[in-house]
């Protein structure tokens, strides 16, 4: 591999760091705005669905620590939800906590939604290792040659 090819394939560390903090921001940083914003919409959609179904109890690094390993790849938003959970729900007495903690399927699916978002963002981060600024989604379909009559 030549030196120029090695430079072309060197990962953008800043983009990967931004992609960990806010899903999709890494692609925006390297110039793939449309791709980045669609990734952002997808990850936030899954996280919002997870919190809607499972409540903020769906992210809990103490009781669901293995799931948290998958969820943490969503970045700051998951840390914020975990912080809210530990600040607002966990210190409450059991009687008050009962309505704020998800029951079986609600809890499981809430956790699963956010874990899937985290794992998909992990795939997005892997894509950043070989992404190029010129590879953004084209606004229109591939060009076709016009038939001149």
């Amino acid at each position: 591999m030549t030196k120029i090819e090695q430079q072309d394939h060197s990962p953008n560390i800043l983009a990967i760091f931004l992609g960990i903090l806010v899903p999709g921001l890494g692609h925006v940083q390297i110039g793939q705005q449309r791709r980045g914003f669609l990734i952002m919409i997808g990850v936030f959609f899954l996280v919002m669905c997870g919190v809607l179904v499972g409540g903020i109890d769906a992210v809990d690094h103490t009781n669901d620590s293995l799931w948290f390993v998958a969820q943490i790849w969503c970045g700051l938003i998951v840390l914020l939800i975990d912080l809210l959970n530990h600040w607002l729900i966990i210190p409450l007495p059991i009687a008050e906590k009962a309505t704020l903690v998800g029951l079986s399927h609600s809890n499981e699916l809430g956790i699963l939604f956010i874990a899937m978002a985290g794992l998909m963002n992990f795939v997005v981060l892997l894509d950043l290792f070989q992404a190029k600024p010129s590879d953004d989604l084209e606004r229109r379909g591939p060009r076709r040659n016009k038939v001149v009559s």
Partner: protein
Amino acid sequence: MLGWIPFFEPMNAMQSYWYVLLLPMSFGISIIYRALRHKSYASYWRSVFLMTTQIVLGIVAIAIAISLFVQFIVPNLN
């Protein structure tokens, strides 16, 4: 449901209809995956809906296969 606070309290009313949540989950996964793999925005949403349908149909097919296995094959194993 009247006292329910969205995004704070869990949606325990979905308890009996949990399998419906496969739709938004596969839709969200499709949005992210197609954003990575698709070349053109023109056909992007069409491919997202197509992938969502493929995931849902695939999981339904697996569910049917497993239920047939449990109902008809497992009892004959003993």
